[in-house]
């Protein structure tokens, strides 16, 4: 082994040449902007501010006494907390229904997957239409059974749940396919053995399937959390943050502060906090994946 690898030996010149486009690009396009975000967050940079000054952690202090930031955090958390369990339950259910090969399974999987390849903006606008108070499909169907539907998108209590629903339906197919892949890797003999013991399908699901695919469940959960923290296009197309500020989330607030009010310093402090959370979640994800590597093989 050793002598073999010596043969192709070290090639620092080729190695560095091959990685340099990606490395240089990464430094300019990702690394420097992240550092810049942090530095801008320490200034009072705004369009109307001619003299930009370092103000230390003033923006962060301001953030923690900003009621709207609390609301934004609350909304983002609510979004995440509503999305995770519903997503897991539905995707596991769909995966169980569609994991085996039967006639027509391809069609059913494709049907569930189609929203995944639809752009977020189309999906958001389409559901905005469906959730219209007057003439929207949902309220029309409700009125047929004599229920007066609420103002889905113009009700402070309903805006976030509706956005969660829309996001949920769009992502079902992707997570279902991930779970189907994991379920197919569970050895058949587990099920055969438990069948001999007389275990019911439900029992098999909880005692065999769930523990066996735990790593995938964990990964999907982390992906869902990170996705929820970055949610933007759905909110902008469905409610534009409204009514009022009742569906403001992290990225929406960043967008508004930076590109509507041009408060670059203040907006950057929100970005920096979002970045810190994403780093922690990603590191947890990588750590756990390493631990589960034997599981994946």
């Amino acid at each position, binding site marked *: 082994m050793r002598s073999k690898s010596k043969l192709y030996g070290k090639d620092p010149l080729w190695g560095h040449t*091959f*990685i340099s486009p990606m490395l240089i690009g990464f430094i300019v*396009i*990702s690394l420097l902007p992240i550092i810049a975000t942090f530095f801008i967050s320490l200034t009072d940079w705004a369009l109307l501010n001619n003299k930009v000054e370092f103000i230390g952690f003033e923006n962060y202090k301001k953030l923690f006494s900003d009621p709207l930031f609390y609301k934004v955090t609350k909304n983002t958390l609510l979004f995440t907390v509503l999305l995770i369990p519903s997503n897991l339950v539905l995707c596991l259910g769909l995966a169980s229904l569609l994991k085996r090969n039967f006639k027509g399974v391809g069609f059913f999987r494709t049907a569930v997957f189609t929203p995944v*390849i639809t752009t977020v903006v*189309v999906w958001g606008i389409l559901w905005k239409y469906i959730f219209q108070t007057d003439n929207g499909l949902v309220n029309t169907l409700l009125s047929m059974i004599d229920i007066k539907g609420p103002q889905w998108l113009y009700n402070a209590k309903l805006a976030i749940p509706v956005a969660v629903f829309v996001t949920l339906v769009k992502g079902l197919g992707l997570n279902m396919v991930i779970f189907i892949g994991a379920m197919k890797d569970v050895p058949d003999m587990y099920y055969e053995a438990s069948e001999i013991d007389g275990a019911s399908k439900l029992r098999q699901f909880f005692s065999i399937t769930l523990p066996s695919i735990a790593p995938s469940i964990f990964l999907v959960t982390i992906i869902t959390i990170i996705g929820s923290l970055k949610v933007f296009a759905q909110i902008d197309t469905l409610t534009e943050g409204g009514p009022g500020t009742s569906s403001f989330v992290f990225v929406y607030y960043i967008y508004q502060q930076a590109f509507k009010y041009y408060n670059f310093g203040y907006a950057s402090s929100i970005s920096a906090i979002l970045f810190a959370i994403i780093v922690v979640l*990603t590191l947890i994800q990588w750590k756990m994946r390493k631990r589960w590597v034997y599981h994946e093989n």
Partner: protein
Amino acid sequence: MRIDSERARRTKKRKKIVHYLVCSIIAVIMLFPFYWMLTTSLKTYSNVMKFPPQWWPDPFTLDNYIELFSRHPFLTYLWNSVYIAALVSLGVVFVSSLAGYAFAKIRFKGSNFLFLVILSGMMMPIEVTIIPLFLALSEMNLANSHFGLIIQPIFGYCGAFGTFLMRQFFITVPTELIEAGKIDGASHLRIFNKIMLPLASSTIATLVIFSFLQSWNDYLMPLVLLNDSRTYTLPLGLKLFASEMGVEWNLVMAGATFSTLPMMIVFFFSQRKFMESLAMAGIKG
């Protein structure tokens, strides 16, 4: 005994029917929004507002599409989206297959560390880097162009993920192939071009699908950067069109249908590859 097996067969059949029924209901729920989008785009405005709703467009009209193109340059939006996403995919494949190959098969100092550095790009999504990128691009008078939309994904999340994906693939390629090439006097570049890239075609296809969709889907960056309607991408153009049209849902849905159709057609020709690729990106990313 016989009655028992007969009964077992019957319950099995009943279960099968229930299973199909449940699956069909789900399929209808998932596909109905698309049906509603398409049929609304083929109705007249007064029929969209009708109660009870028209389940099938009558009269059937294509006027909405004619009006769509006369009001907004949707074909330009489509072209912009397509060529940006194509360049993004090309760029991602270029930089990340080179880097992935080097990290997997060439030994050089600091390769492990540098790999982790590039991998960390996956933690730096556009949502947190957009402010400095916007300021820098404005400074260079490149804000209202496609430059940022093309360059950012290549060296941001997509490129970092691509490097990881390509490295994972090249690790599985036997080193003997490289050694054989070396003995024949081929350089790494030649080995990479002639041996490695053809082997990696399936992984490259995965990466193309992933990067293309990321770029195709992007909304935040075009929204922040572009302010000239000739430069808009489909998602941005559609959003602004929808805001202008308000409750003229027949027109808005014509725009939505037009924006969805190209990707839908590609998807239906290679569903399996799409599902596999995106699931893999989900698991590994």
